[in-house]
C-alpha cells in the first residue's frame, strides 16, 4: 500500500506580501513528496484555522516577516484548540527575534525556522515529527 502523503498548509498571515519564503518552502516540501496547499496572501488566523480543518492537514507552516508574530501565533493556536486541531504541528518561518522564540514555543508552536535555514532541515524536521500512516 502506498504511504499516505503528509499534508501541509503553507499560510501567509498578516498584511505583508513578501511571499518568496512561503513559495520556496511550498515547492521544497512538494519536491520532498508532501501534499502542499498554499493559502495565498493576507490570511487571518480564522481563515488559516478553517483551511487547516477543511484540508485536514498534518502541518501548518506560517511565514511571518513583519513583526506581527506575537499577535498572530497565539490567536491561531487558540483557534486550533477550539476546533479540536491541537494535534496539528505548527511551524513558523521568518524574521523572529530570539527573545520571542520561547514565548512562541510556549504557545504551542513546534519550531521556529530563521533566515538561512536549509529547506532540507525543514523537511527532516517534519519527517521526524509527523508519523506517516
Amino acid at each position, binding site marked *: 500500500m502506498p504511504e499516505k502523503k503528509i499534508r501541509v498548509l503553507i499560510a501567509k498571515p498578516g*498584511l*505583508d506580501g*513578501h*511571499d*518568496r519564503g512561503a513559495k520556496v518552502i511550498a515547492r521544497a516540501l512538494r519536491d520532498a513528496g508532501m501534499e502542499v496547499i498554499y493559502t495565498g496572501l493576507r490570511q487571518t488566523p480564522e481563515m488559516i484555522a478553517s483551511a487547516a480543518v477543511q484540508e485536514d492537514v498534518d502541518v501548518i507552516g506560517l511565514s511571518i516577516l513583519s*513583526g506581527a508574530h*506575537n499577535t498572530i501565533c497565539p490567536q491561531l493556536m487558540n483557534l486550533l484548540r477550539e476546533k479540536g486541531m491541537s494535534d496539528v504541528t505548527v511551524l513558523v518561518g521568518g524574521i523572529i527575534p530570539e527573545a520571542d522564540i520561547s514565548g512562541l514555543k510556549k504557545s504551542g508552536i513546534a519550531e521556529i525556522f530563521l533566515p*538561512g535555514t536549509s529547506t532540507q532541515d525543514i523537511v527532516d524536521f517534519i519527517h521526524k515529527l509527523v508519523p506517516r500512516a
Partner: protein
Amino acid sequence: MSDKPKGSTQTLTPSEASPHRQPSEKELAWEKNTLQPALKKSPERNYDFTTTSGHPIRRLYTEADLTDWDSGRDLGMPGVPPYTRGIHPTMYRTRLWTMRQFAGFGAAEDTNARFRYLLSQGQTGLSTAFDLPTLMGYDSDHPLSEGEVGKCGVAISSLADMEVLFDKIPLGNVTTSMTINSPAAVIWAMYLAVAEKQGADWKKISGTLQNDILKEYIAQKEYIYPPEPSMRLVIDTFEFGVKNTPKFNTISISGYHIREAGSTAIQELAFTLRDGLEYVEWGMRRGLEVDQFVPQLSFFFNAHNDFFEEIAKYRAARRIWHKAMVERYKSKNPRSWALRFHTQTAGCSLTAQQPYNNVVRTALQALAAVMGGTQSLHTNSLDEAWALPTEFAATIALRTQQIIAHETGVTNTVDPLGGSYFVETLTNEVERGAWDYIEKIDAMGGMVAAIERGYPQREIAEASYRYQVAVDKKEKIIVGVNDFVSDEKPLEILQIDETVAHRQAERLRKLRAERSQAEVDRRLSALRSAAKGTENLMPFIFDAVKSYATLGEICDAMRDVFGTYEEVAIT
C-alpha cells in the same frame, strides 16, 4: 574547513568556450604556450564560475570579446547618449550621490526623531518607510492592522500624523522619498499639504514618490485595487506633477523588490524597464507629451552580491532606457533619455548568522552601486535580518557610504571600469538578456497583460527556487550560513514600543471627534463620484486629505468604486 562545492571544472580555453570569438594570434599563442601547460600542471578549482544570478563567466576576457563593440556607439562619453558611462559629464567630482537612508518605525513622533538624528549625522536626503497598514490603505485602528502598527515602518493614518512626521523639517530644503505604492496619491497629497502649511513652494520642492504599482503585482504584493484603476491613479499623479510639482519624481520604477523576491539580475533589469515603458505608454494614452512627464520618472535598483554583474546591470539600464525613449517614443528631450536611479543594497543577502559580516556585504554592494553611477543610495544595517535597525546599526550603514565617498578614491574619476573587456562584455550580455525579456513581454501585449497571465511572477519564482537549491547544495556559498559556520552571541535589536497601536487609536478617536464630519463626508462623496468618471483624482484626494479624512476612509471611498484585487497564487 570548507567543503568543496560541486561545480564543473572549467577546462575550456576562452576560444573553445565561445565559438563566436575571434582571438588574436597573440591570444591563441598564449593559450597554447602558457595556459594549457599551466592547466595541466594545476587545474582550476572545482567551482561553478557563474554570477549570483547563474550567468556563466569565462576565465579571461580580451578584445576578442568586443569584436562587434564600438566604443563610440556603445560606450560613448559621460553625460551624453547612450549614457553607459553615467548621466553626468563629471559624475561624483561635482556632486556626490545623495545618501538617503530609509527609515520609519513606530508613530510619527518616533520617526521624526530618527529623521532629525540622521540629518544631524550628515545624511543628505530623507526616505520614509511606512508600516503595513499604511501601505495597504488601512487606518491604525482597523481590525486587520492588529499587530502590525508601527512595526515595518511609521504609522500614518491622516494629515495630522504627517504634520508630526515632518515637524521642524523644512520641506523646502530637504528632498524626501516616500516608499508607498497603492495609496501613493493619498500620502503624496498629505505631504503636499504639509509643504503648503510650511510655506514651501510646490514648484521648488523635490523628492520621490515610489508609486510603482506594477512591481507590486509582480513582486511585493502590496496592492489594493485592480491594475486598471491603479494605473489610472499613477497617471493622475504624473499629470498633477507635470502641472504643479515639476521637480518632484512622481514615480520610482523599482527593480529592488523584484530582485528581493528572488529574480536574477537580468530579470530585475528587464521587468523594471518594461514596467517603465508601460508607464510611458499609459501616460501617452492619457494625452501627456512624452518629454513633459518622462523627465519626472526615476528608477530604483537593487545592489546584490555579485560585484561586476551589478555594475553591468546599471550600465545596461541606462543604455536600454535611452534607446527605448529615442526609438520607440521619438523623445527629443535629453532629460527623458537619461535614466536616473536610486540604489539599495540587497536586504535578502543579509544573514541572521554572524550579523557583523553584513557590514562587509553592504559595503561591497554599495561600492558596486557607486561604480555603476547611482544618483542616490541606501545602505542596509547589519541587524536587518533580525529587525528594523537600531540607531547604532543605522549609523554604521551611513558611515559606510561616507567611507566610500571620502576615503576609497573611487569618486575621483568617471566610470572607472569603462573599457574593461570584462565589464563591457558583461554589460552587453546583460543588456541583450534584458531585451529578450522586454520583447517577449511586448509580444504578450505589455506588462499589465503579462502580469495577468502570471508571467513575470512565474519567472521570478523559478529563479528564486533555483537559487535556494544551489544554496542548499552548497553550489553557492554564503559565509556563516552554509559554510564557515560558528556560534555567536545574539545582537541587541530595536524593540518597537507596543503602545504605538494604542497611541494611534487614541489619536484617531480624537481626530474623528474634532474634525467637521459633514465636511469629510462631502469631500469623500465628491471623490467617490469623481472616481466613477475619468477626471484626475488628485485634486479630490487633496481636498479630502485637508479635511482630515483618514487614509483608510479615502482608500475605502476608492475601494467602493474600484473594487479590490486578489492574485492567483503561483507556487
